[in-house]
Structure formats: C-alpha cells, structure tokens
C-alpha cells in the first residue's frame, strides 16, 4: 500500500514539476505528442476489436503514429535548451529540418504500405 502511495506521490510531483519548468515551446510539442498517442491508442483498440485483416493496413497506420510520436520526441529533445551541449552543432532550425525530412520518408513509406 505504501509503495503505491509512493508511486502516486512521485508521479504527482513529476507532473507539478513539469507544469512549472517546461517552456511553452516544449509544451506545444508535448500537446502534439499527446494527440498522436491518442490516435495510436484508437487504432490499436480498433484492431483488437475488429481483427487484424488487412494486417498491412493496420501496421501502416499504427507504425505511422508510433513513428510520428518518436520523431516528435526527438525534436523535443533537440530543441530543449538543457540538451544544448549534447547535440553539438544542431540548431533548432536544423532539428526541425531533420524532422521534416524524416517525416517525408515516413509518410511516403506509409502510403506505399497502406495498400
């Protein structure tokens, strides 16, 4: 019981800390990531309910949401000022350009896979 309470406390503290310390630029990216997460969950629940045929269409849609989520989280990491010395030579503009390039590749493949 106490470890559960501890976990809930830790998560609560994390959330408060998050609201206080993150800049609005990062909060926008986080909102976008949350939306992507919702679409991914909807697709997965639909697949569980209705069945996996056609499997390639399900995989295309689901991997599209997962990949968009991952690319957004990478963008968030690279744009965050706290990580500046880790990503040497990657300005926020360069990070966004990489994000666009990866998304172009991703969506071309997803459209091909949808069938």
């Amino acid at each position, binding site marked *: 019981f106490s*470890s559960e309470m*501890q*976990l809930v*406390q*830790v998560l609560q*503290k*994390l959330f408060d*800390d*998050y609201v206080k*310390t993150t800049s609005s630029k990062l909060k926008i990216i986080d909102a976008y990531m949350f939306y992507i997460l919702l679409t991914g969950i909807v697709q997965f629940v639909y697949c569980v309910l209705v069945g996996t045929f056609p*499997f*390639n269409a399900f*995989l*295309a849609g689901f*991997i599209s949401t*997962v*990949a968009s989520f*991952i*690319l957004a*989280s*990478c*963008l968030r*990491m*690279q744009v965050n000022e706290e*990580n500046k010395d*880790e*990503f*040497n*030579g*990657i300005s926020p503009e*360069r*990070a966004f*350009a*990489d*994000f666009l*390039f*990866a998304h172009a*590749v*991703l969506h071309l*493949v*997803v459209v*091909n*896979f949808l069938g």
Partner: protein
Amino acid sequence: SIILKVMSSKSGLLRSNSLGYTSLLTFVILALAWFVGFASRLFAIVRFESIIHEFDPWFNYRATAHMVEHGYYNFLNWFDERAWYPLGRIVGGTVYPGLMVTSGLIHHVLDLLNFPVHIRDICVFLAPTFSGLTAIATYFLTKELWSAGAGLFAACFIAISPGYTSRSVAGSYDNEGIAIFALQATYFLWVKSVKTGSVMWAALCGLMYFYMVSAWGGYVFIINLIPLHVLVLICIGRFSSRVYTAYSSFYVLGTILSMQIPFVGFQPVRTSEHMPALGVFGLVQIVAAMQYARTRVTRAQFLTLFIGGLSVALGVGLVGYLALVWGGYVAPFSGRFYSLWDTGYAKIHIPIIASVSEHQPTTWVSFFFDLHITAAVFPAGLWFCVKNVNDERVFIILYAVSAVYFAGVMVRLMLTLTPVVCVLAGIAFSLTFEKFLKSDEHFRGSSAGTDNKQYDKLKKQKGSEGADQTSSSPDGAPVSEDPIGPNVRSIVSFVMSILLLMFVVHATYVTSNAYSHPSVVLQSSTSNGGRVIMDDFREAYHWLRENTPDDARIMSWWDYGYQIAGMANRTTLVDNNTWNNSHIALVGKAMSSNESAAYEIMRELDVDYVLVIFGGVIGYSGDDINKFLWMVRIAEGEHPKEIREANYFTEGGEYSVGAQASQTMLNCLMYKMSYYRFGETRVGYNQAAGFDRTRNYVIGKKDITLEHVEEAYTTENWLVRIYRVKKPANRNGVKYTERKIRPTGGHKSSSTVGRSGRKGSLKNKAVVIKGKRPVTA
C-alpha cells in the same frame, strides 16, 4: 590529416593549400583502390570469357533478364511455372530483389544515354564495380571511428582482401556482391548518427538499411547488432540523448521500410529474430523516461520509480514474448539461424542445410588463407579501440567479437568477418605508422590539445605546451623520456611495408588461383603445359536446348537446377532454392531406388529427361556419385521405410561402388545411369576396363542394361549424361511366369510332314469351349 596538423602551425595560405593536397591525395588513393579492386577480380574474364559463374548466379541472371524484358511489376508478380514442376515457384515473394533492381536500373540508365550494354555484361561486372564502392564506404566508416589515415588503410585492405573477393569476382552475380557495400554504408551512417544525434543521419541510415534488406538475408545481422550496441551502451552507462534519438528514429523508419520487401513481409513483427530490436526499442523509451525523471525528483523517489518501473516493464515484456511464441503469433527461431547457435542441430534435423559445403565449420587454414596478415594484426586494432573507447568504438568491438564467432561456425560467414578485420587492421597499421613515422621536431609548438579531440573525451587534457617539448605520443599517454631513435623508426616502417607488400602478393595469388573458377568450364593442363578446356556442362545444356521439346521436364539433383533453367531453358523439378524438402526427397528416392521403382516416381512427376554428372573419365570429384550419400540421407528423412542408408554400404560399412558394393547400390538408378557403357571403356592405355578415375578402382557391375530409360546424350568427356525416360509400352507385356498359355518346350519342326501335317491345319490346336479353360490337344 597528419600533414594537415604539421602544416597548420604555418601560415594560413599554406593551410588551405595543404587541405587541397590532403583531399587530392585521398581522392587519388580511393580511386586507385577502386581500380585495383576492380582489376584483381577480372582473372576469370581474362582467362575464359564474360560468363556467369557457379549455380546461384544463374537464377539471379535469369530473374534479371526476365525483369528487363517484362518490366518491374511483372517481375514482382512473377510466378515461375518452369521451376519445381509441378509446384511452381512464386519468385516475387521468395527473392531479395535488390540485386536485380540494381542491375536493371544501371541497364536502364545506360540505355537512356543511348549506350546499350547487354544485361549479361552488366550482371558479370556488377560485383567488381561495387567492390570499389565498398572500399569507399569502409573509408568513411573508419574515418568516423578513428582517422582518415586509418580509413585509407582499411579501404585498401578491403579492396583486395580474399575473404571479400571470394564472393565478388567478375561473374559471381550474387547477393553478397552488393550486400557488403550496403552493410558498410549502413554501419557508417549508424556510427555517424550516434556521433551527431541527428535525425537526418538516422533517417539516411534507415534508407540504407532498406537497401540492405532488399539485397541480402544477412540483414538480420544488422538488426541484431545495432540493438546489441545500444543495450551495451545502456549497461556501461554511456546512454545519452544522442543514442536515444539515433536508435528510435532508425528503428521505426527501418522497420516499416524493411516490411516493403515482399519476401520479408511481416517478419519484423512476427519472428523471434527481430524481437531483440523491438525489446531494445521499448527499453530505450523507458530509460529515456527515467533520465527525464531523474533530474526532477529526489534520489529515493527516483529509485522507487526506476526499480519498480523497470522490473514491471521487463517482466511484462518477457511474459508477453513467451505468451506470443506459445500462442503462435510470434515464430520461434527458424532452423537456419538456430543452427548457428546449436551447431549439431542441422545434421540431425535438417540434412539439406548440413549438406551444403559452404555451411561447414571453418578451419584454421581458411582464416589465414582469406585474411593473411590482417587476421594477425586486427586484435591489435581491437585492443587500441578498447583502450581508447567511446560510443562508436563500442560498436566496432561488438561487431568484431560477434563476427569472429559466426565466422568460426560457418565458412560462408567469413565474408561478414572480412570488413571488420580490414577496419581494425587499418586502425592498427595507421596508429603504428603514425607513431613510428612522425619525427619529433614537428611536435614542438604544435598544440597537443588537437590530438586529444580525436580520442576519448573523458581523458585528461594534456598539460601546458611548454612542459612537453619532447615527443608526445598521439594517444596522450605519459611522455616517454627518450624519443624513438631513427634506427628503430626506419626498421619498423620497413618491416611494416614489407608486410603490406606480402599481403598484396598473397591476395592477388589467392584471387587468381582459388577464387576465379567459373565452375561452368573446367580447365586442366596437358603434359607439355598446354591448356585443355572442358566445356561439357555448356555442351550438354546446349544439346538440351536444341534437341528437346520446349516443355520437356528435366530431373536432376538440385545443384544443377538453376543452371539447367538458365542455360538450357527447360523446366526443372528441383533447384538450388531448396524450399521444398519433400520434393527433393522424392527426387532423391528416385535416384536411389531400383529402376522400376524409380520409373514409377518419374511417371508420376511427368519426367522426360534425367541428367547426371559423372566424373569417372576425367577424375572430376564433384560428381553425383560422390554426392550420392546425401541424396540417400535426404530421401531417408522423408521415406525411412523404403530407403535405408545402411543398405548402400558394403559389408564392412564403407561407401564403395566397387566389387564389394551392396546389391542395392549396384542396382540403383544413379549407379546405372552413371556407369552405363562405362564397363567397356578404358580411361587410359594401361588401365583396366571400367576403371573409375575419381574413385580410383574398377567398378563393381560392368554389364548394365537399362529397361525404362535410354541414353540420349553423353558429352565429350562423359561429364554430363542425359537419359530419356521411355514412354510406357503400347501393349502391356505379360511376364513369362504369369502367362496362362505357354508354348510347349523346345518342339520346333521345320518339316511340314508330320502326324497332323496336312496343309492348313494347326498342330496342338487348343479346343476352346466357351466358358471353360482352353485345353491343348
């Protein structure tokens, strides 16, 4: 880069000049490496002709020719009804299209430029061209790992290394020719993305991984090595946001790209070979979340979160994976890859995999033969990487260790060991030359700090420049008191140069003598040194092409299926794809049974011609009699009641076709077809009739009669023998013992005068009463 550092202390103008010189030197060296790599693979073309070698390349060539003729979509949807009769083969879904698409693309581009080159020539020269590109990719990889100087060494090593040339000579039109280039390029892009943490490099790595997946089944090695690298980085505490960015982007893009190849299909989410990558992907997300939480909560709370969360995640993951495998959603490890861990597995359960000569364990001799001095020097490079470790050098260490293990399991996998050996040997040579070639005076006044940036950034920075007037060794070790004397330096440089020269001589010798055989054409020399070419294979296939109907079906052992389909253009029963073990076992059973039983099987399968390879006249040791035991074993696997391997041995238990051979052996179809009419032949003036040059004794049964097949064609040196399967007789003959009416024995009268010798009457006329048996008078 050495020259650059030396000159950078001088004026700025000279600095830009030296950059130009360095680039020119790099370009010239890489161009020379490409040219030398291309040239050293051309021995077979110069000695014979521009022809596709071996067995597998013939299928690749036929598929490429089909694609060039019918277009890309027809190639992807091609159902080949001229292979695996009567089953057919879905080529589009069972082939890695990268090789064919590459050749087709080059052919198309050259055609557009009004420079028509026959597709066969493009196929023959593709592998040497890509060897040059591999050298360039290796240069970039080693430059990221160590320095440009090491990169040039590694590029030159891999251009001529026999381990690589063995599978990429001109004429060897096989997947490995382009796959090694894709491998090195993928690894270079991966190392670059880990170093920079940029999503662009990770996306490019994903695209190059897609090309690798389209090229070769060995992509499984990449998709397990990269997650292993990330896992090791996490375990040793080198996890950073760059690793997260690089791996997550690479994994999602690479996975969905790899599923575009029809042959791979849904395997990345359905088979055990791809599960480690998914597991590490999940782990990386958890670790990144932990890192995010760590800075924001107290240590105690973080520990709770960390341990609780991690253990829950690992437990769920493991249980989930086992449940999926048990439920059948995720396939367990396939036999091909399981046999890499449990080496005794294939011999018992999958004899087809065990019978391939390339799948045998590697001997010590092969390591030296294929790698020469690089095999001896690469542990030194590995040690230098361990000593000066950073994120990307962990990768090359893991690659080296896993490649050495796999190369020891299977001869064929020496090919994946060669790139890493070249990279590490390049590093070792570069470091040694750097240490022993640089003279001391140039170090005075130059900033020693620039040296350290190349190596581990955790190392302590060097002290002030005034303190180290004597030579500072490049890896930042404590300054030695006395500089290296000029004598030692010149001796070491001289010895290393001699080693490199010996490597070049050995590599060229090996490529020329061991790996440049077309195997379609055999060569030997006469007693006065002249060359004798034995072109029996092509003679036989050409005969088949010209003298048999277009829809004739040829039965032979699976080794020759691709060649028959490619050169003779006839339907075959089984070929090198070996996807259907039962069908191959049926052919093996036909070859091992006596003639009547074999005839039944051949009638069932609509066989028109049978082809065997026989080397007894010239002493060719790769013929079907030497492979016969494998046919028996494979047939026994499927039909254990009819075929027993022990029946084919002599009384003493050894395999022989001589006088002591068992009756089963002497009556089987393979024996009869190989030795028909051989009993009367003499192979030399002083040899007995029926002396088999390959087995070196006289054969057991010399008077062979064939009942259901007849000889159609035997080539000049008896190497290929083709038999026609006779159609059933028009009238079913009844065997003499089963006849109801028999002539009375021996009574043959030539005179018409006899007891009932009146003209026009029958002797011994049978009295026939309807409904009763006839009674002879």
